[in-house]
């Protein structure tokens, strides 16, 4: 169905923020074409200008801070940037529609779902109210929303995240546009929901033949969806290729490094490739290649001369001197081989010693109702979870949002009081410790948080932040000694020595996460709970942090409880995996066993939903519906309403633990 008739042509687009001298050139010379019926992906890390490109196309750049300073945008034969605002209104929604990253905030909270869809339809066509209602319901059923008549009367907050994104799509498609611009449409969604939404977009495209401009940072999503890919870096496109060529032979060093830095089981034995440094600031003019300072292949020319846009194959073009036949490289230096650290992990002799043993841990939050706020029920966020972590090893706690994995982590650290269960650490029962005794114990169990921006007090110096825990736990006898320790720690996590005298906001996300790691290490813990420490970071930075965590583990014999939803990270880092669903563990075992032969239907669906880069188009297990609320879990096996293999017994009892060869266990009647 790919006609090579161009629908959208973006030519040398420039969009800037701020005033003359301090202007940030978010989009700095972007050129690409989307053909009719084609799916074009604009891939890039945060801050590369991809979202701003999308907003510029429809002239939705936030005013007055930002403005489009140059270029052309052709939609069909209409020159959009020449259009006045009035004419743009005819284009938006009707010819090109857009959906956004956050379905939670992108819908008007006080207008019904049906009302919001009807508004789009009404704006672009005159319909009778009956026809309008029919059209709204048609749109809702088209995006797979059951019972559209009722849903149309509901408000956005009554729908789940995945449902909201479906409504957004229904709204965008209600006026039947030729082009759908999707700005990170699944980033805020769980992996199983993401799979549903991506599938929906593909199906709708097959039906309507509309073109798709997909903005994303996720190589897996690109693999799933795109016909052609443009890679954005620092405000412009540095590589463009058809999907097959892109995934088999990426040409730009940046693209190659992106692929290399993806964690996976294959990389377990060696550190991940990383891209040194950070994304450059866009408030300056680049004389040479914008990637040069981070490129392992760069030489003098790269610093001084911007590379040409070189065509290297059928539809494959790249902006790099290496690919330019007109440029000869003076002395080809082989990139330094990555430093490989010996991996201690499971071979360590001490590995058998348990550091932490959690038995039947439960954290319930009371639900209060009525005149006297009596407790009428509980949200069973964590409902009887048992696991143990061994010295120097990593246990990954995997699950989708709302499954209780973070609460479990905080519950065992006694940051939230557990409702029942025991947490044995080094012979003492943490749940019974109070006051001073608990305070003393806290040195040995530490936590690293997800958001590197809110996990440090913005009004304290980095050195003071690290020192705070040392003071509370009486680490280091004197101020001078503590300062020395802090310097060593900062060096250990790969930060410059003067970092201690600066404030957190002066560091990038990855660097902040390093500071958090240093802060945790300062009190010499033996176990660290890592609560999604890399999910807010870009792939290349994620690789740096994962490498660091792995090195520190082998050096200090640390045990990690790694809480995550990212299967690739689990495969790379974990020794054992525990899969959580609705407050309970459904499967547990060594990482190879669980990832390669998952037993529980939920684990199977979860793994299957992850968009794979190596094997696209593979038949997926699709989960229907969304996880139920932990306040009111389904009877019997919590998973049975969504399970393809559900049996009558699943509705009646919660399944017992079934053990497969040794440590691999699952709770499912299928194997009883």
């Amino acid at each position, binding site marked *: 169905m790919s006609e090579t008739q161009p629908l959208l042509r973006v030519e040398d687009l420039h969009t800037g923020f701020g005033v003359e001298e301090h202007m940030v050139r978010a989009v700095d010379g972007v050129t690409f074409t989307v053909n009719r019926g084609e799916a074009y992906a604009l891939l890039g890390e945060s801050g590369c200008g991809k979202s701003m490109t999308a907003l510029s196309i429809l002239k939705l750049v936030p005013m007055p801070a930002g403005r489009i300073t140059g270029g052309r945008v052709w939609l069909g034969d209409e020159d959009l940037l020449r259009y006045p605002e009035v004419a743009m209104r005819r284009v938006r929604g009707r010819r090109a529609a857009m959906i956004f990253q956050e379905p939670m905030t992108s819908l008007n909270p006080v207008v019904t779902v049906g009302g919001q869809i009807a508004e789009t339809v009404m704006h672009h066509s005159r319909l009778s109210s009956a026809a309008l209602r029919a059209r709204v319901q048609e749109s809702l059923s088209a995006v797979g929303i059951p019972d559209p008549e009722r849903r149309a009367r509901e408000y956005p907050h009554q729908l789940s995240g995945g449902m909201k994104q479906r409504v957004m799509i229904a709204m965008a498609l209600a006026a039947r546009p030729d082009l759908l611009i999707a700005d990170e449409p699944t980033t805020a969604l769980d992996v199983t929901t993401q799979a549903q939404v991506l599938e929906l977009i593909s199906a709708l495209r097959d039906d309507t033949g509309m073109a798709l401009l997909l903005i994303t940072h996720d190589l897996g999503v690109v693999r799933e969806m795109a016909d052609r890919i443009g890679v954005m870096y620092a405000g412009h496109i540095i590589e463009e290729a058809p999907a097959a060529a892109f995934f088999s032979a990426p040409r730009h060093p940046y693209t190659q490094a992106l692929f290399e830095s993806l964690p996976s089981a294959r990389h377990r034995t060696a550190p991940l490739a990383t891209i040194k440094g950070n994304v450059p600031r866009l408030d300056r003019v680049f004389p040479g290649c914008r990637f040069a300072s981070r490129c392992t292949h760069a030489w003098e020319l790269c610093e001084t001369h911007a590379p040409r846009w070189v065509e290297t194959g059928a539809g494959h073009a790249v902006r790099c001197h290496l690919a330019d036949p007109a440029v000869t490289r003076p002395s080809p230096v082989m990139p330094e081989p990555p430093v490989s650290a010996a991996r201690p992990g499971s071979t360590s002799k001490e590995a058998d010693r348990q550091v932490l043993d959690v038995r039947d841990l439960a954290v319930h939050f009371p639900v209060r109702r009525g005149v006297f706020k009596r407790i009428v029920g509980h949200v069973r966020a964590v409902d009887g979870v048992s696991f143990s972590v061994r010295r120097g090893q990593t246990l990954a706690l995997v699950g989708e949002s709302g499954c209780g994995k973070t609460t479990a982590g*905080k519950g065992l*650290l006694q*940051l939230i009081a557990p409702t029942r269960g025991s947490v044995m650490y080094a012979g003492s029962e943490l749940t019974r410790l109070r006051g001073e005794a*608990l*305070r*003393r*114990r*806290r*040195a040995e*169990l*530490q*936590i690293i*948080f*997800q*958001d590197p921006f*809110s*996990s*440090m*007090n*913005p*009004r*304290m110096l980095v050195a003071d932040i690290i020192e*705070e*825990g040392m003071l*509370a*736990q009486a680490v280091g006898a004197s101020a001078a000694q503590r300062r020395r320790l802090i310097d060593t720690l900062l060096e250990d996590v790969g930060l410059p020595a003067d970092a201690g005298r600066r*404030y957190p906001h002066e560091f990038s996300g990855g660097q902040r996460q390093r500071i*958090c790691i240093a*802060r945790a290490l300062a*009190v010499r813990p033996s176990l660290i709970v890592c609560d999604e420490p890399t999910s807010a970071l870009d792939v290349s930075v994620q690789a740096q942090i994962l490498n660091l965590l792995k090195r520190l583990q082998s050096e200090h014999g640390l045990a990690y409880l790694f809480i995550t939803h990212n299967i690739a990270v689990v495969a790379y880092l974990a020794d054992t995996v525990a899969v959580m669903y609705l407050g309970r563990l459904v499967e547990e075992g060594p990482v190879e066993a669980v990832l390669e032969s998952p037993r529980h239907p939920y684990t199977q669906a979860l793994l299957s939903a992850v968009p794979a880069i190596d094997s696209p188009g593979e038949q997926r297990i699709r989960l229907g519906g969304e996880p139920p609320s932990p306040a009111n879990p389904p009877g019997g096996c919590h998973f049975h309403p969504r399970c393809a293999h559900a049996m009558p017994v699943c509705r009646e009892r919660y399944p017992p633990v079934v053990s497969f060869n040794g440590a691999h266990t699952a709770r499912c009647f299928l194997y009883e």
Partner: protein
Amino acid sequence: MPFTPVVLTTDALLFLLLAAAGGYAWYARRREHLRAPWRQVARSRLGMMAAVVLCAYLLVGIADSFHLRLRIAQPDAQAAVRYSPEVLSLLDLATGHLRDAVEKTYSAPFAATLYVRETVTTPDGTVARVYPRLRHAATHLDDPERQRLGDVLATAATGALQGIALWALAVALLLYGLARSGRARWRTVLRQVARDELAVPWRLMLITAGVLIAGAFMLANLSFTYHVFGTDKVGQDVFYQTVKSIRTGLLIGTLTTLVMLPFAVLLGLVAGYFGRWVDDLIQYLYTTLNSIPGVLLIAAGILSLQVYMANHPQRFESFAESADLRLLFLCLILGVTSWTGLCRLLRGETLKLRELEYVQAATAFGVRHLGILTRHLLPNVMHVVFITVALDFSGLVLAEAVLSYVGIGVDPSMNSWGNMINQARLEMAREPVVWWSLLAAFTFMFALVLAANLLADAIRDAFDPRLRSVP
């Protein structure tokens, strides 16, 4: 000593407040994150212009807060040293010529005669209705009708020139200071200031200061020979009253804050951080206080104080002292009615902060509650405190006028804009209208409140552009 210093309670509190502000400035000077928002305030043009105006008010207010009692000159050198019972301030000493220049009744600004006719018996025995000459104004003019305009202009011009001379000196000093701190040649600095090339809008500030200084000197110079704003019903100089009222306005705006701040901050933080029954209790406390209409609570408080003072006159040494106590009590009770808003804001902010990961990280390190409250929570809610204090100030100054009008403001004997308006408002019904008292009070109050509002805006923008300003 020719005098003995008197420290009224409000004086002491004002100095305490100034010392606290100074201490904070010294502390913040070397901490970039504390300085950064203030630096942004310093870049705001309207904000800095307002700051200059506020400084002028503050100087007058401070001068009016050094109190003393003069020694009574006694013929007998051996007699025990005695001091006058009258408590004066430095401002009173400087404006003594106005305080004593009491006319019989109303006179218009720059008038040479009274505003009302009087029956006088001329030396030749005839009785005439004439506008009698004033005793303390324009006495040096033989024929006021003809000479007055020229004299006023000349005196004003002399004053303005003196002011400009002083201003030039100040500018020179400032440029010298700027040049030294910036390690630049002073000519360069002069050029930068003149072309307004520096981050801080010095040019605008200097112009504002110039206008203020010149105006002040003009008024001061004229005040020796005229009642520049006229006189009131009992013949008191309105200019003197207006200037004396500055201290009252400033004190109401600042002391109220000082009184309520500790409660609001402590209770707000504690309620938000500990939650549970502590939160319930504090919420109950402020809902209860809030549910009493503010004016009525103030009325109840002031009435109670009045009863108390009327029944215990022996407890108060001097007039000044009892008026001062009433002012303090007014601040106190205004504080009681106004702390609840800040407390609720802080509670909400703390509730949000408590869930932030750095607070949890601190808990995970075993940092004690006190440490978390002072190190992590307090510094991160300070912006709310600054914004609220700045926004409250102008409201309190305006409230004083209304309360004094209702009769539950400051002591009726105390100089305040509210009292001036209250005493003068009936004169609007006179024919012809006596407008100068009202206009003087409104103008001075307006300038102070506008300046405070503009500075508060600048502070709010700098500290938190997203915080909503609740009226």
